[in-house]
């Protein structure tokens, strides 16, 4: 039973990593055609991507969106997680349902709805509208991440602080905040990654300045070049590095308590 389970898990993880392995393989293959047999090793595709000024500009736009989105959603997510799991909040169930709503609504429907709202208000599309739109869909993720750290904090620490005469604010600042720090960092990283890879909302809400994901999508519709493999590998590696760091931070916080 256990051996069969191991085999199945290996197969499923193989399935999860097969597409990624393929693009990695073809990103260093010399041939224009992405097919077997492999023809030789080259760094040509990476050089092409790194020398592409248009994609470089898109990358900077992505960063200009991802930094504020990550900061905003981490702060809001922390407030939401604290309200949900730490302090008694009125209308708790309703609040939790509201937080879940952006996750439940299909992205495209939310994007067109926001587009109508902005149009009615006379707000023109810009990076600010992208930041606002992305923040709403990333908020449920940061909330869950911060809450997963808060749940593990021992309540007795707060009771002890209160018994020793600490006010609500000082027990928050000196007990809760240090303990949730790792959760905040993990949430920031994950929000950054989610923001940089989001396509639908970015494409709908951006004006003239286009982020990397939008540029990649148009390239991908028109021509499938091996240099896209190289770009994909760079993005995946960057994201893996960030996610591994975030997960390491989050799990370290579990061990501290």
């Amino acid at each position: 039973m256990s051996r069969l389970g191991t085999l199945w898990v290996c197969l499923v993880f193989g399935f999860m990593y097969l597409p990624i392995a393929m693009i990695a393989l073809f990103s260093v293959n010399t041939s224009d055609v992405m097919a077997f047999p492999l023809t030789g090793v080259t760094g040509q595709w990476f050089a092409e991507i790194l020398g592409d000024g248009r994609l470089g500009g898109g990358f900077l736009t992505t960063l200009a969106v991802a930094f504020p989105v990550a900061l905003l959603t981490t702060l809001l997510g922390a407030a939401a997680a604290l309200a949900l799991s730490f302090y008694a909040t009125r209308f708790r169930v309703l609040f939790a349902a509201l937080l879940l709503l952006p996750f439940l609504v299909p992205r495209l429907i939310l994007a067109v709805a926001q587009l109508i709202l902005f149009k009615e208000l006379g707000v023109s599309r810009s990076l600010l509208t992208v930041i606002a739109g992305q923040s709403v869909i990333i908020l449920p993720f940061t909330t869950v991440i911060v809450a997963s750290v808060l749940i593990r904090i021992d309540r007795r620490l707060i009771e002890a602080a209160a018994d020793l005469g600490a006010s609500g604010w000082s027990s928050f600042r000196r007990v809760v905040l240090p303990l949730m720090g790792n959760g905040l960092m993990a949430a920031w990283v994950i929000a950054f990654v989610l923001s940089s890879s989001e396509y639908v909302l970015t494409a709908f809400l951006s004006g003239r300045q286009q982020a990397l994901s939008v540029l990649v999508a148009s390239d991908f519709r028109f021509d499938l070049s091996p240099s896209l493999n190289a770009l994909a590998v760079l993005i995946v590696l960057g994201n893996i590095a960030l996610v591994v760091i975030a997960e390491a931070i989050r799990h370290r916080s579990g061990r501290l308590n």
Partner: protein
Amino acid sequence: MRPQSAGTWLALPVVAALGALCLAPLAILFAYSFFSVDFVTISHDPSLKNYARILQSETYRGLIARAFGSGLLVAAITAVIGYPVAWFLAKRAGAAKTMLLTLLLVPLYSGDLLRIFAWRVLLGAEGAINRSLIWLGAIDAPLQGLLFSPLATHIALTYNYLPFMVIGLWLAFESLDDAWLEAAADLGAPGRDRFRRVTLPLTAPGLIAGGLMVFVMVVGDYLTPQLLGGASGVTVISAINDLFGTAFDWPLGSAIAWTMLAILMLCFGAGAVLIRRSSLVAEGA
């Protein structure tokens, strides 16, 4: 500060943000669904015309039904694939658990676009699977049906959302006490009965929660059918997109969007009731 008021003050900015950027847009969309298009302007006389059109149109009804059918299918497939994985992660993985969970989530963060791109490389007529099969002598000509078909769409959808199902099930398996299974075994229940009468009911909340997440995301997926489905890539979501773009019928688009939202909310409500009921069973066990 009393904890009660602290919580309310913390919730306030979050509610304000969600109200402005999620509730308000959806409310305006709802209002638009009662308007109509008059040549190139939008007439603000409210009517139920758009909803009547959806009810009468076989195309839209078909697209809506197909979206929910796909959602159910992919939820079922991910449940079958994910169930043993979740069991293994919770009960057998031991020290490797954290690493395996992280590994499971990593492909999620590469973004929809890149994952779809990778499947295109794999499934195309000139793609890796076809070329390897030809190279190995298994087939003579490339299999044409692989890419730009419902098959390609559903493979990629399963790939995209499997981790969500596994996480939902894993949480349920984590809280499953092995003592129940031992007790059932001691009382002489064979493996099949132990699964059907102990494991399955106790992990049902996770199964429903995971299934609901996968279902919702498949129904709302825009890019995957669009980029991998070919002619089958026309979905109700892409129809909404067209109505807001080239077809310029925002009111009809809004009405279809709200029909989808209403059905999704019903499904979610039903799912929440089921989860509560099955958790009561799990607690009572």
